[in-house]
């Protein structure tokens, strides 16, 4: 119950942020073109804002992709181990993903701390960069938590795109 509530909350949070960021991305990029056509000069800051908005979209999109089982995964080795191992493999798969995201979040956090200490600024916007960079460790940490939940209780794990197609085609196997 707690897992389900937390996952739903996480999902709403990530989808809400990505929607807002996408709206900002589209608006600033189009405004740049439109204003250039009207006044002859574009918005010099629009691309940098667009880049940061895109960073929010794709980083929190990492969690959205996890929640929908949409991550890219080469599947050629899927049948190399016995099918009876599948429940065990599922937990291992989720545990490794969770651990990877956690380690990436830690390394990214250290980089953000360095950027903060050096007070690195965006040349175009003249604001400090670290709040935007901080999106990387936060997104990876949230994704790590999500996959930890899937490891603990795989029933919350979404079916992947291929599994959904297989179900629709009545399990017609490859």
């Amino acid at each position, binding site marked *: 119950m707690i897992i389900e509530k937390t996952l739903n909350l996480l999902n709403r949070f990530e989808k809400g942020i990505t929607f807002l960021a996408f709206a900002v991305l589209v608006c600033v990029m189009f405004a740049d073109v439109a204003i250039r056509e009207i006044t002859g000069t574009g918005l010099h800051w629009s691309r940098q804002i667009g880049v940061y908005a895109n960073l929010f979209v*794709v980083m*929190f999109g990492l969690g959205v992709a996890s929640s929908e089982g949409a991550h890219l*995964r*080469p599947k050629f080795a*899927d049948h190399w181990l016995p099918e009876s191992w599948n429940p065990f493999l599922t937990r291992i798969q989720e545990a*490794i*993903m969770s651990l990877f995201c956690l380690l990436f979040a830690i390394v990214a956090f250290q980089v953000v701390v360095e950027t903060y200490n050096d007070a690195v600024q965006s040349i175009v916007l003249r604001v400090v960069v670290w709040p935007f960079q901080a999106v990387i460790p936060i997104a990876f940490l949230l994704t790590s938590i999500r996959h930890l939940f899937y490891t603990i209780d795989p029933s919350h794990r979404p079916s992947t795109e291929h599994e959904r197609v297989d179900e629709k085609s009545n399990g017609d196997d490859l």
Partner: protein
Amino acid sequence: MTAALLPVIIILLFVLRQNLIVVLGVATAYAYWAFGDGVIGNIVVDAWDAANKDILLSIPLFILAGNIMSRGGMAARLIHLMKSLTAPIPGGLAIATILSCAAFAAVSGSGMVTLLAIGTLMYPALINAGYPKSFAIGSLCAAGTLGIVIPPSIPLILYGIMTQTSIADLFIAGIGPALVLTFLMLSYAIIQNFGHREGNWDFSYVLRSLKNGVWALLMPIIILGGIYTGYFTATESAAVAVVYSIIVEIFIHKEMKWDVLYEVISETTKLLGSLFPVLMIALSLNVFLTYQEVPQNLVIWLSQRIDNPVSALLGINLFLLVIGCLVDIGSAILILAPMLGPIAFSQGIDPIHFGIIMVMNLEIGYLTPPLGLNIIIAMSIFKEKFWTVCKSTIPFLLIMLLGLMIVSFIPTISLFLIK
């Protein structure tokens, strides 16, 4: 020993069914640790630098524009238009199918979306009109892949980013090969279905269909026309495409509500969330490999063994065809473009031309087992067995291979609009 351990780790991760981001992330971290300065944090720094480029913005914007168009009624409008235009030609419905796929691909930018949108509507129509089932399945699966080479193509954008090649030029270069493939498929459709006649021209129906489909047809004209005339950059044209698609679907066609737009954005975010973090890590690995002069050394080593562009082209084509069977197109481009690009360039193959060859090779992978994405989608939407779909695609596979050879050995087809 240190170098030999890396492939073992990678294979182990594949066996443990890890996502590409984990495999690539671990491989990159291992490379930094074992062969670089040992500072793993540099992956994040390089990934950040990679993401901090405005050229990447064309990817989310083109995917969003394509998804908006796909969720509206664009597919049905294009089909009506193509059917009205091809009615008196032998095999008219088959031709309409291929042309609808080509036109819709230019709007959606995705092979899978094209197959889903056009296939759902055209498959029953082809069967009801008496076309053989194998032709109907094969033509839809094959023509569905046209979206991969017809601009705006996401694989071409990925190739442009990984090899620092102009995306605008790649888009323009995609037009010729797309026309070759479409022409070859159309010729086969006419020869195979010469006895099928749908009826005569109905001029008022043509006019009505044209009126209904004109907004969809204008989309590729705005994008490509804007890029070709130098009016827009690729990123700017993507932003224009999004706003245009919203205006057309919500205000002109009135076939989309605002709440559906929210769903479409979520759907797009899901795609981007699976693609972009991998892209960032792949670019980080690319920086590392370039710093370590790996591609340069690979080129020197291969140059001693390959002495002419023909054998280089044949070898690369064969290699990519095998890779296309096993790995999805996005992953293959992210990993292989920076490695194979320098080899091809050292043999005098134009970077733009090589990008088209690479994408066309991997496009064929959509129709080949075990990974063939269009085969899997066709199984689902046409409710057919895997081998039935595979057999249906064989003639089209041969046609696409012929197209690939033509485009590979006649660079002018890709480059004539650029030069």
